[in-house]
C-alpha cells in the first residue's frame, strides 16, 4: 500500500514554508522601511508569518522523519537512504544523507536562530531588517526542496517524491502500487556516531554565519553604520566556535571512518568550510579593533559579507556538481546548479551593491595605526588569515575556472595540483607560523602605549622560555626538519606568550581570557598537526622482499601495505602481528564473536548459532539460537605485540561487504595511546562471492588414527561415526539408508579444526557431502569406504587460506590536536559570553572612548 497522505502533507508543508517565508520577507521589508505605527503592525504581521514558517518547517522535518522511521520505501528518499536493518540512531543520519535532507537541516537551524533573535532582541530596532534578510534566505533555501515543475523548469528537488515517479522501472508499469520490500541502505561510511552529530553541528555553523551577515546588511540598509557591530560580535564568535567544532568533528569522523589514513585531505568539500571559517575569524578580529578605536569598520563590513558569500560559494561548489571528479565526496548532482547560482548571485550582488551605494557614508578614521599599537598587530593577523584562506580558495576554484573558460568557448585543461596535501601544506604551514607569531605578539599590547623599550621587556621572558622549551622538544622528539623546528617554535611561542597574558588576565578580570585561551588552543592544534601529520609513519611497509609485481613494472615500488595470512605470525617493523580471523558483532553480546559460530540466514539481520558462546563465564547463546547481527559488518581481529616492550593489544578494523556500495568499504580501528595513535585499516580481503578455485582433487587413502598432511597442516582421522541426520543438508534418511561421517582433526597453528565429510547411501545411490574449512583453505570429501582394508579414500581440495591486506600508520601527538580543539572552543565560548554581556549592557563600558582616555593605560584590557 502506498502511504500518499504523509508525502502530500510533507509537500504541502514545503510549499507553505516557501510561501510563508516570502510573506515574512515582504512584511519585514515593509516594517523596516516604514517609521510610523504602520511599521509596528507590519512587524507584528511579519512575525506571525515567520512563526508560521517555523511551524511549516517543523512539519516538513516531521513528515520526512516519519517516512524514514516507518520504512515507507515507496518514497524515493527512504528507499535510497535507509533500510529495514538500520538502527534507529542511524535513521537520524539518513535524514541528512541526501541533499534535500541537508538543506532541510539548514533551514531548520535558520528557523531556530531566527526565533532566538526575535526573542532576544528586546529593543526591536534590529528585528525588522535582520529578519527580512533571514526570511529571504529561507525562501531561497526552501525553493531548493520545493519540487515544483513549471513548464520545463524544475524548481527544487523534493524529498517527498514517490519511487515510481523517480525511477523508470518496468515493475511500476505492471503494478503502480509496488513497494520495495527493503531500502538500499545508508552508505556504510556514514554509519558512524559522528555522522549523527557532525552534520547538525556543521550546519548550525553554516546557519550562524547568516546572523552577522544579516546584522551587517541591516546596518547598511538602515544607515546604522556603527551600532550593528555590537550585537553581531557575540554571534560571530559563537559562529566561529560552532563552525570550528564542525570542521574538527568532520576531521575526526574522516580519521575514524574513512581510509585515506588521516583527518584532513584538502578535499574541496573540506576547503569549502575552512575558507569561510578563516575569513570569519579575521572579521571577528577587525570588529574587535573597531570596538576599541573606531578603525577597521569598512574592513569589518567587507569581511562579514565575504564570510557569508563564501559560505554560499562553498554550497554552490559542493552541491552543483561542478567539482566533478575533483572531489571524492561531493553531493550527487540534483540539477540545482542554476538555482544555486541565482541564490549565490542574489546575495553577493545585493550585498555589494548595497555596500557600494553606502560606501561614502560609512564613517572612517584617518588615524594611522602605530606599529606599537595592538590594533596594528591584530589587523596584520586578520590580513594573514584572509591570505591564508585565499591561498586555499584559488586552487579549490580550478574546476570553476575551467567551467568559465568553457562557457565562453575556450578550452581549459587545468587540473588541481597532483599532490594536494603537499601543495597546500607548503603554503599553509608558513601562514600558520605567521598566525602563531602574531597571536602571541599581539597579546602583549594590552596597554595602548607600548614602545620599543617596554616591548623588549615584555617579550624577553616569554622568548627565553619558548626557546628553551623548543630546544628541549627538538632534542627529545628528534626533530631534524628545519621547517618543523620553525613551526614548533612559533607554536610554543604562542602558547607561552598567551599563557603569560592569561595568567595576568585571570587575576584581573577572568571574563576577558577568551582570546588567550582560544589562541593557546589554536597553537596546540598546530603543534598536534605538526607531529601527527609531519611525523606520521607507515609501520606496515612491506619488508618481505617478495617480488611485488610480475611483469614489466620498471622499479620496485615502496609498498605501504602488508599481506598477513590467517594464524600465520608476521613480523612488521616494531610489531609482531597475528591475524586471528573474522569476527562479528552480535546484539547483546559484548565484544566480538567468531564468524564461524554464526550461520547466515536469508534475513541479513539474523544468524543462527552453530555453537555455544561463552565469555567471562557467562553464556550468551547456544547452538541453534537465532541471534541478531549485521551481516555486512566484519571485524578482523589482529593482535599486535610490540617488539620493543612486549606489550600487546588487539585491533578490529572493519570491512563491510556491500554490493550496493561496490564491494568492500573499510573503516579503520585505532589504538589510542597518550602520546600517539596506531591506525590500521583493511585494504583487501578474499572475496567470498567469487567462485572459489578449489584446484584439482587429490585422493588419499587413510586409516583410522593415521596422521597425514592436509594443505601443509598435520591432520588425523579420529574416527567414523554413523549419523542419523546430516548437518547442513536437507536429506531424509529412510530405514534402508545409511550416512557416516568421518571425523578429521586438523592441527592449525593457533587452533584446531574439525572436518566432517559425510558419505551417504540413499535409495542405493551414493552421495558425498564435503566439509570445508575456509580459513585454512581446505575442503575434504569422503569418497569411498573400503571395509576390506579398513581404509578410507579422501578427496582433498585446497584453495587460498583466509588473509587480510591492511596498512598501519603511527600518528604521534595527535591528542595535542584534539585537546587544542577543545581548548580553542572553550576560548571562543568565553569570548562569546563576554561580548554577549557587552550587548546586555552589564559588561565592560562601551569602548568608543574619546582620545584623552586613550592615552592612559586601559583599565580593562580588551583581548580579542
Amino acid at each position, binding site marked *: 500500500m502506498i502511504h500518499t497522505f504523509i508525502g502530500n502533507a510533507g509537500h504541502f508543508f514545503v510549499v507553505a514554508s516557501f510561501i510563508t517565508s516570502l510573506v515574512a520577507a515582504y512584511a519585514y521589508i515593509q516594517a523596516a522601511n516604514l517609521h510610523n505605527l504602520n511599521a509596528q503592525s507590519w512587524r507584528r504581521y511579519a512575525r506571525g508569518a515567520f512563526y508560521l514558517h517555523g511551524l511549516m518547517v517543523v512539519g516538513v522535518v516531521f513528515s520526512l522523519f516519519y517516512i524514514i522511521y516507518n520504512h515507507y520505501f515507496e518514497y524515493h528518499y527512504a528507499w*535510497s537512504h535507509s533500510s529495514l536493518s538500520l538502527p534507529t540512531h542511524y535513521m537520524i543520519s539518513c535524514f541528512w544523507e541526501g541533499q534535500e535532507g541537508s538543506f532541510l537541516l539548514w533551514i531548520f537551524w535558520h528557523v531556530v536562530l531566527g526565533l532566538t533573535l526575535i526573542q532576544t532582541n528586546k529593543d526591536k530596532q534590529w528585528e525588522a531588517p535582520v529578519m527580512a534578510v533571514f526570511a529571504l534566505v529561507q525562501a531561497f533555501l526552501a525553493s531548493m526542496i520545493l519540487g515544483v515543475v513549471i513548464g520545463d523548469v524544475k524548481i527544487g528537488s523534493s524529498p517527498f517524491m514517490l*519511487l515510481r515517479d*523517480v*525511477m523508470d*522501472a518496468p*515493475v*511500476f508499469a505492471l503494478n503502480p502500487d*509496488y513497494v*520495495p520490500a527493503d531500502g*538500499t541502505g545508508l552508505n556504510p561510511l556514514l554509519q558512524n556516531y559522528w555522522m549523527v552529530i557532525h552534520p547538525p553541528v556543521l550546519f548550525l555553523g553554516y546557519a550562524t554565519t547568516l546572523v552577522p551577515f544579516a546584522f551587517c546588511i541591516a546596518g547598511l540598509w538602515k544607515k546604522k553604520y556603527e551600532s550593528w557591530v555590537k550585537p553581531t560580535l557575540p554571534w560571530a564568535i559563537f559562529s566561529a566556535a560552532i563552525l570550528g567544532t564542525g570542521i574538527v568533528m568532520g576531521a575526526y569522523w574522516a580519521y575514524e571512518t574513512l581510509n585515506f589514513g588521516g583527518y584532513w585531505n584538502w578535499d574541496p568539500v573540506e576547503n569549502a568550510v575552512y575558507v569561510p571559517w578563516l575569513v570569519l575569524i579575521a572579521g571577528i578580529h577587525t570588529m574587535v579593533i573597531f570596538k576599541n578605536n573606531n578603525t577597521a569598520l569598512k574592513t569589518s563590513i567587507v569581511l562579514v559579507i565575504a564570510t557569508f558569500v563564501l559560505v554560499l560559494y562553498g554550497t554552490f561548489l559542493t552541491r552543483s556538481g561542478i567539482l*566533478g*571528479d*575533483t572531489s571524492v565526496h561531493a553531493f*550527487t*548532482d540534483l540539477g540545482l546548479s542554476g538555482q544555486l547560482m541565482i541564490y549565490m548571485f542574489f546575495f553577493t550582488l545585493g550585498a555589494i551593491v548595497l555596500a557600494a551605494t553606502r560606501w561614502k557614508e560609512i564613517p572612517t578614521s584617518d588615524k*594611522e595605526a602605530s606599529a606599537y599599537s595592538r590594533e596594528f598587530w591584530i589587523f596584520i593577523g586578520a*590580513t594573514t588569515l584572509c*591570505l591564508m584562506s*585565499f*591561498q586555499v580558495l*584559488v*586552487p579549490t576554484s*580550478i574546476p570553476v575556472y575551467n567551467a568559465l573558460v568553457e562557457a565562453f568557448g575556450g578550452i581549459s*585543461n*587545468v*587540473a*588541481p*595540483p*597532483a*599532490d594536494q596535501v603537499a*601543495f597546500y601544506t607548503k*603554503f599553509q604551514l608558513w601562514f600558520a607560523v605567521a598566525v602563531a607569531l602574531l597571536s602571541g605578539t599581539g597579546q602583549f599590547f594590552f596597554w595602548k602605549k607600548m614602545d620599543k623599550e617596554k616591548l623588549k621587556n615584555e617579550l624577553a621572558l616569554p622568548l627565553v622560555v619558548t626557546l628553551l622549551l623548543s630546544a628541549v622538544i627538538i632534542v627529545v622528539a628528534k626533530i631534524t626538519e628545519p621547517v618543523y623546528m620553525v613551526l614548533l617554535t612559533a607554536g610554543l611561542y604562542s602558547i607561552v606568550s598567551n599563557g603569560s597574558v592569561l595568567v595576568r588576565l585571570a587575576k584581573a578580570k577572568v571574563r576577558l581570557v577568551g582570546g588567550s585561551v582560544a589562541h593557546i588552543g589554536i597553537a596546540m592544534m598546530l603543534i598536534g598537526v605538526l607531529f601527527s601529520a609531519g611525523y606520521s609513519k607507515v609501520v606496515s611497509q*612491506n619488508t618481505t622482499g*617478495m*617480488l*611485488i*609485481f*610480475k*611483469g*614489466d*613494472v*620498471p*622499479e620496485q*615500488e*615502496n*609498498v*605501504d*601495505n*602488508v*599481506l598477513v595470512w590467517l594464524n600465520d605470525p608476521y613480523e612488521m617493523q616494531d610489531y609482531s602481528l597475528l591475524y586471528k580471523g573474522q569476527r562479528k558483532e552480535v546484539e547483546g553480546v559484548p565484544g566480538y564473536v567468531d564468524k564461524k559460530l554464526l550461520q547466515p540466514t536469508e534475513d541479513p539481520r539474523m544468524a543462527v548459532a552453530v555453537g555455544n558462546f561463552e565469555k567471562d563465564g557467562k553464556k550468551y547463546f547456544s547452538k541453534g539460537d537465532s541471534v541478531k547481527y549485521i551481516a555486512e559488518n566484519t571485524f578482523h581481529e589482529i593482535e599486535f605485540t610490540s617488539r620493543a616492550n612486549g606489550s600487546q593489544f588487539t585491533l578490529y578494523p572493519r570491512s563491510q561487504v556491500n554490493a*550496493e*556500495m*561496490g*564491494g*568492500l*568499504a573499510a573503516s579503520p580501528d585505532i589504538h589510542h595511546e597518550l602520546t600517539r595513535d596506531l591506525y590500521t585499516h583493511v*585494504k*583487501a580481503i578474499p572475496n567470498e562471492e567469487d567462485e572459489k578455485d578449489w584446484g584439482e582433487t587429490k585422493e588419499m587413502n587413510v586409516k583410522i588414527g593415521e596422521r597425514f598432511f592436509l594443505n601443509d597442516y598435520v591432520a588425523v582421522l579420529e574416527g567414523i561415526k554413523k549419523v542419523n541426520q546430516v548437518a547442513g543438508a536437507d536429506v531424509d534418511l529412510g530405514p534402508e539408508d545409511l550416512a557416516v561421517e568421518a571425523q578429521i582433526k586438523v592441527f592449525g597453528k593457533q587452533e584446531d579444526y574439525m572436518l566432517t565429510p559425510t558419505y551417504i547411501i540413499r535409495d542405493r545411490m551414493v552421495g558425498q557431502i564435503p566439509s570445508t574449512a575456509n580459513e585454512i583453505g581446505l575442503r575434504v570429501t569422503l569418497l569411498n569406504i573400503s571395509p576390506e582394508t579398513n581404509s578410507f579414500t579422501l578427496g582433498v581440495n585446497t584453495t587460498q587460506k583466509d*588473509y587480510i*591486506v591492511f596498512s598501519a600508520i603511527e600518528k604521534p601527538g595527535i591528542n595535542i590536536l584534539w585537546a587544542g580543539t577543545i581548548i580553542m572552543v572553550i576560548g571562543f565560548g568565553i569570548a562569546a559570553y563576554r561580548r554577549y554581556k557587552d550587548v546586555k549592557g552589564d559588561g565592560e563600558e562601551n569602548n568608543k572612548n574619546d582620545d584623552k582616555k586613550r592615552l592612559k593605560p586601559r583599565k580593562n584590557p580588551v583581548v580579542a
Partner: protein
Amino acid sequence: MKKSHLFGILIIAACITIIMATAGDASTYVSFGEAQQLSTNGKANKVHVVGQLKKSTEGEILGLEPSSDKLSFSFVMVDHNNKEQKVFYKEPMPADFTRSEQVVVIGSYRDNIFVADQILMKCPSKYQEKEVS
C-alpha cells in the same frame, strides 16, 4: 604615500604571488600521448588522465592484473583518443574499481608504464545504478 596604501599594495602582491604559485603547481588533464611526450621531454610533472577501463564487447574488463601478493595491481585504460595504456597502481584494487564508468589517474610515465599515485573513480550514480527488483 600613506602607510595604508603601501599595505594595500603588499596585499595585492601577496595575492598575485598566490595565484602564480597555484598556476605553477597546478596539474593538467592530458591524454596518454601527451603525457608520454611530457615524460620523454624530461618533464616529470604529475598529470591527470581521464579514460575508461578496457572492456570487451560483452562488457568484460580486460587486462586487469592483480599482483601475486595482492598488494598492487595493473590495468589497461583507454583514454579519450582511444589510446590503450597499461597503468600500475601500488595499492590493492579499490572495491568499486571494476564498476567505475570513468577513471581519472594521477601520476606520470615511467618508461612505458603509467604509474598512478592516485586513482579517482566516477561510479554510476546511485540513482541509475540501482535496480528496483
